[in-house]
């Protein structure tokens, strides 16, 4: 039996229960629901009605991109006399919603940004049914304004098209280059007598790491142990070594996860993070633990693609003037001094209502030199459109980074950025690489280092066999 609530006169409560016999709990919930409903009603009425969707709908998942595109929107709408419905969708939700919308054929955006690790999985299926429309035509067409100018495809950093290309068809316009450098504590390097100019290869770097190492207190490098973000970029850096590509897939879409470069990469990586000889610690690459580690000098250097450099200034203002960037040490003398981490593409869906307009939108949002310059000032992201690099914003000195010209440094490395070929099975491949890394680290015994390489080789072969079986099953 429900307790009769005190404080309400018996007459009132009884008349309430006459109308609503379910009891106190539901009554409270009903009241709350009505209150919330009224609030929402009021809020909705107060909102300016956005109007039924624009002529084009565009989704983006990164808040900063959304802010930037929203700023560029009015000029687009004015110039082309079209309305743009710009939506910000959370990262994971983009994938889910795209898929579900694709399945129901409804509610698809016209233009959507997709993250590099997810892009490949949308390229599955017979070519006519792939969610995205090919952009090869748009990229290779001659420039309307200036016939002497080379088509767009020649003015982009070519390597950045690879993650969004499948079977020769380019499905996405790359948003960025994302070269990777090492961000390091210049003040501590100086204190310890480490001269970045003299470090040219990873061997040099590791030797310095061993020299200045203080167990539990100071490590030269921050490496991720529980994810593949660091391993991946080190793997990509090896592209071309031994005459073989490096990464997950090659240009033909074949799996290369078990090739010699991958084996070498992991075999080299594991002892760096585990064991008495390690030179790296793993406090995490983001968030409070990363900040603390950098502030304390627990880890002196970490991988810094262009997009990550912004976070330093934001989270660690007290290190202004103490941080500097250096190119990655090469794997072998004279080798590549950078890699790549992350990326975003802009795709045009097959259900796009007006492709020419969408292409104009892409150009407007992605290629306007003014916008790109000011975005670079805010976020440090290097676009793949070489024409924009002449803008002065890319060559300003940054006091935070000891007056280095941030843009110039990254631009110098842009052409070395390795290609990253993709496949509909990219996510399975990434997941398997992570599993192999985790298990190799877990099983690594520093007293028996000779056991490592065969273990790595074997596990990679197994993982690759699994993925190949998956790929074979794909009838498309």
């Amino acid at each position: 039996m429900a307790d009769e609530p005190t404080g309400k006169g018996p007459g009132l409560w009884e008349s309430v229960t006459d109308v609503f016999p379910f009891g106190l709990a539901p009554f409270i919930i009903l009241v709350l629901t009505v209150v919330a409903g009224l609030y929402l009603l009021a809020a909705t009425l107060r909102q300016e009605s956005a109007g039924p969707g624009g002529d084009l709908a565009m989704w983006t998942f990164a808040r900063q991109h959304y802010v930037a595109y929203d700023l560029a929107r009015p000029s687009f709408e004015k110039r082309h006399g079209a309305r743009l419905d710009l939506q910000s969708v959370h990262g994971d939700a983009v994938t889910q919603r795209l898929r579900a919308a694709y399945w129901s054929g409804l509610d698809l955006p016209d233009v959507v940004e997709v993250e590099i690790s997810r892009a490949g999985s949308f390229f599955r299926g017979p070519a006519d049914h792939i969610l995205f429309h090919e952009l090869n035509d748009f990229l290779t067409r001659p420039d309307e304004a200036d016939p002497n100018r080379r088509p767009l495809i020649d003015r982009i950093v070519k390597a950045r098209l690879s993650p969004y290309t499948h079977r020769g068809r380019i499905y996405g316009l790359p948003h960025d280059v994302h070269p990777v450098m090492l961000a390091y504590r210049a003040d501590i390097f100086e204190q310890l007598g480490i001269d970045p100019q003299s470090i040219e290869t990873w061997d040099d770097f590791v030797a310095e790491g061993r020299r200045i190492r203080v167990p539990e207190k100071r490590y030269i490098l921050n490496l991720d142990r529980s994810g593949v973000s660091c391993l991946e970029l080190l793997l990509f850096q090896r592209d071309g070594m031994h005459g073989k590509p490096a990464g997950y897939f090659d240009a033909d879409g074949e799996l290369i996860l078990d090739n010699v470069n991958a084996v070498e990469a992991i075999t080299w990586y594991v002892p760096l993070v585990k064991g008495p000889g390690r030179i790296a610690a793993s406090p995490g690459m983001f968030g409070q633990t990363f900040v603390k580690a950098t502030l304390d000098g627990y880890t002196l250097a970490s991988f810094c693609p262009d997009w990550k450099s912004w976070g330093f200034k934001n989270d660690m203002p007290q290190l202004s003037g103490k941080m500097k960037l250096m190119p990655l040490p090469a794997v072998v003398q004279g080798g590549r001094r950078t890699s790549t981490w992350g990326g975003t593409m802009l795709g045009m869906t097959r259900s796009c209502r007006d492709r020419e307009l969408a292409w104009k939108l892409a150009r407007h949002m992605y290629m306007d030199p003014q916008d790109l310059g000011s975005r670079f000032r805010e976020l440090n992201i290097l676009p793949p459109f070489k024409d924009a690099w002449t803008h002065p914003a890319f060559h300003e000195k940054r006091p935070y980074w000891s007056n280095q010209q941030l843009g110039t440094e990254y631009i110098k490395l842009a052409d070395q950025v390795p290609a990253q070929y993709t496949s509909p099975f990219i996510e399975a491949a990434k997941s398997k690489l992570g599993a192999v890394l985790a298990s190799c680290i877990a099983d690594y015994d520093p007293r028996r280092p000779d056991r490592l390489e065969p273990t790595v080789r074997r596990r990679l072969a197994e993982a690759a066999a699994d993925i190949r079986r998956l790929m074979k099953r794909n009838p498309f």
Partner: protein
Amino acid sequence: MSRPGERIFRLQHRYAPYLFVAPFVLLFCTFGLYPLIKSVVLSFYVTSGPRSQIFVGLDNFRFLLEDPSFHKAVVNTVVFAFCSVFLQLPLSLGLALLLNYRMLRGRNFFRLCFFSPRLVGMVFVGVLFSVIFAAPYGLLNVSLHGLFGMSLERVWLGDPDLVMPALVLTALWMFVGFNMIYFLAALQNVDRVLYEAATVDGAGAFQKFWHVTLPSIKPVAVFVVVLSTIGSFQLFELPYLMLQNGPGPDEAGLTVVMYLYQNGFITGDLGYASAIGWTLALGVLVLAVGQMRLSGTWKKEA
């Protein structure tokens, strides 16, 4: 109130139940039956989009049997379910026994206390414990470091061997108190007379427990076991949120439902995902029916 005519009266009585269950039936046919049937059909196809589906018959299921990731998911899920039932429930029962002590003061306080974790939804527990297990400054590492001098660097959610224990611990925290409520209620409903009779027969405490308590709470125990099993097999949100929207290192946190989600919404093969879903459903069904049959509480009467 006027009396309605006799005929209307009987009509009402005859048709009322149909009307009463009509909303349920209607909603169920639309939102239950239709998607269910559609997903059964899907499980016989390999798909990559609404217009690119290829009929493969039972091939999805055949591939399932060979798929090492699926095996991993099943193993993880079964281990978790096993721990849920055989670790959680004895603890719940034990706790209930403690609380059942007749002269206990503050019983309400304790009851409230033990129940509180259940109020925190699985989503939020996942978020909370992803931070608790974080290294090096999560609560667990800090406590272990302070109390036992253990290393601060132990990455619970980054080590393949520690992920499952972390999940099980979290589930323990969440559900032991909740299931205890059921057991407590059952214990408090055990007939005192039976205990007195047992005492007269010269039974000791343990024998009383074995021969009086356990059989009396059997219906509730079965109920809890079946519920726990079904719930454990559907585990998804907890590992998904604790492992930051992924299966964790070396797929250590991959559960069957998570694998279904990955295949359906990340890889995009809804056919394969449906096959996984149906395999799980059949497995759970068999298990649940088996459990109920075994304990003799399966009532044929509807």
